[in-house]
């Protein structure tokens, strides 16, 4: 199966790419893709606890099974909204 991997913010910087195409075995989950990625880019492992994941532009969980052609995104902690993100 072939999936598109989307990376944002510092994860994108670490990979040096916003999009990667990767082949994964049948039965793979989002977690499978992540494990592959962190082998390729060890610095990403820091984000294992803090990141979120999305499958086809919807939030998902690591355990989620993926299908051929899926779009998997890894998202560092977010900081949208105003200026410099000072709480309250």
């Amino acid at each position: 199966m072939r999936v598109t991997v989307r990376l944002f913010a510092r994860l994108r910087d670490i990979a040096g790419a916003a999009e990667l195409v990767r082949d994964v075995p049948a039965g793979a989950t989002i977690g499978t893709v992540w494990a592959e990625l962190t082998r390729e880019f060890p610095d990403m492992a820091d984000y294992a606890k803090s990141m979120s994941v999305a499958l086809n532009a919807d939030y998902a969980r690591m355990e989620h099974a993926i299908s051929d052609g899926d779009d998997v995104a890894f998202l560092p902690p977010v900081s949208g909204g105003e200026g410099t993100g000072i709480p309250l």
Partner: protein
Amino acid sequence: MRTPLLSIGHEPLALDSLIAAVSDRGAATGSDGAVTSFLGLVRNHNVGRAVTHLEYEAYEALALRSFERIVTEAEARWSGVRLAIHHRIGRIDIGGASVAIAAASAHRGDAFAACRYAIERIKQIAPIWKREFFDGGDVWIEGATADPDDVAARERAERVACA
């Protein structure tokens, strides 16, 4: 062209168009008593650093869906409220607006609460990141782990909105 209620883009934000967008939606015309709004601005300092500008990046498709979710949550919580949310991405200089929110309602309490709720939730779950450029370097600002199903986070946003 009618302004969309939700958008993400590179253009400067125009609050007037958000206010018009929440004020002229069909059956509600004439029944609104209050419109509140929020503009988030880029500040010239952050934790002691002299900030020169920010760069915002979004996962646009998911960010728009997150905005839709926030609107749905707010409509369920404050009946009859209408929300518009526009987020700017790309480079934004000091004093520039990164996010604009407008909320219309029959009653001012609901309009204030929904507007406040929206910015709290955007910061919690919208897949948007900012890179801060300051004198001497730059850094990605990382805040909350985005999880729309985190009930505690949502309750925190509701509490801050103090309805």
